[in-house]
């Protein structure tokens, strides 16, 4: 049967998979942000620790997603929870790096001026450093979201379900329709998420601070 016919009959399975996938991704992203942003801020206050942490993060990021999931499997077993843990752990990294860099690159001029006119350290952070670093932080979040959605497809291999499941089963059975039923929604989901976050980034960049898209 054709792909469209397949969709018509099995759309429920696809919707379920999509839902699971979105849940996994959303949950992981949320926790990744909640952990990484404060951690990134903390690192900017502790130079030496920062160097070590970021170096380790750099190395960890070269470990392929599949491997991390495999390690998650071995430590925590099958299912969604181990996957989410791995996704969070991995998703923290780009946000951490970007938060740290974003804040460090705020010109010292502004933090000194802020301190000079009577702001407390916390006020300097919330009124000056974070707003200026926000576009960079959001860029980090965009990276993480895209990665997380991508790894979530792999997570099917360790029993997490989601759209990856459809792809994987499709691959095992040479069922093209199933593959597409998983691959296309996953792609669209990722593209949509990227697009939405780009909008968010535009929204949080004050008009007076529009910067160009830089190198990676």
């Amino acid at each position, binding site marked *: 049967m054709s792909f469209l016919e397949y969709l018509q009959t099995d759309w429920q399975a696809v919707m379920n998979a999509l839902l699971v996938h979105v849940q996994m991704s959303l949950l992981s992203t949320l926790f990744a942000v909640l952990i990484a942003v404060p951690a990134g801020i903390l690192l900017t206050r502790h130079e030496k620790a920062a160097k070590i942490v970021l170096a380790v993060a750099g*190395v960890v990021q*070269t*470990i*392929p*997603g*599949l*491997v991390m*999931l*495999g*390690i998650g*499997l*071995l430590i925590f077993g099958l299912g969604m929870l181990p996957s989410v843990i791995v996704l969070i752990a991995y998703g923290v990294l780009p946000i951490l790096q970007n938060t740290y860099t974003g804040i460090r690159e705020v010109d010292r001029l502004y933090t000194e001026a802020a301190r000079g006119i009577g702001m407390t350290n916390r006020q300097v952070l919330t009124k000056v450093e974070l707003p200026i670093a926000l576009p960079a932080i959001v860029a980090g979040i965009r990276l993480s979201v*895209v990665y997380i*959605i*991508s790894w*979530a*497809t*792999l997570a099917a*291999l*360790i029993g997490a379900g989601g*759209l*990856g499941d459809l*792809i*994987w089963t*499709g*691959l095992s059975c040479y069922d*093209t329709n199933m*593959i*597409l039923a*998983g*691959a*296309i929604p*996953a*792609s669209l989901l*990722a*593209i949509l998420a*990227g697009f939405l976050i780009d909008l968010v980034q535009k929204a949080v960049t004050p008009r007076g601070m529009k910067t*160009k*898209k*830089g*190198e*990676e």
Partner: protein
Amino acid sequence: MSDFINAVLEHLAVTAAGVVIAVLIGVAAGIFIARRPVFAAAVLSVADIIQTIPSLALMAMLMIVFGLGDLSVVIGLCLYSLLPVIRNTYTGITTIPPSIREAARGMGMSRPQSLLKVELPLAMPMILSGIRVAFVTALGTAVIGVLIGGGGLGNLVYRGIQALDWGMIIEGTVPIVLLSLLAQHFFNRLQHFKRRRKTNV
């Protein structure tokens, strides 16, 4: 042991193939949109969208078209590597101070000469940075190739996961991490070398 070495070599070969093709296409595309900025937004967006697609999804879809095996993997890696290469080439060229290009033209250089002798060399550090990112990312992504019939270290990783065998997983991962770090080091040195030779204005 020889199996292991074969796996490593195959992994490297597949990664290198994908990245090299991406560099050839990507640098050309980057130069093109640097010359004709009207296309820049569109080209960069397309490359960006391609990169956003989850790797498993992309590989699986490629397999449907090109069949099982390394070919699909190479094409997939190539597609993923396009964005960093194109974007960095584009940025590298467009951020050259216009006074240098003017000087080159003023001296009587033709467009291709200006490109070859002046603009590309100056943009090289940034282009190399893009290639580095592409290569390191591709090393990791190539692991998934095993799922669509490709070879390389992904095989070890995958079997390790199925057999719940730490040893195999590590055996498959360590070379990738080492290769990534080596590549980063190598490219950094290359970039640094190029940057020092760049004239300081």
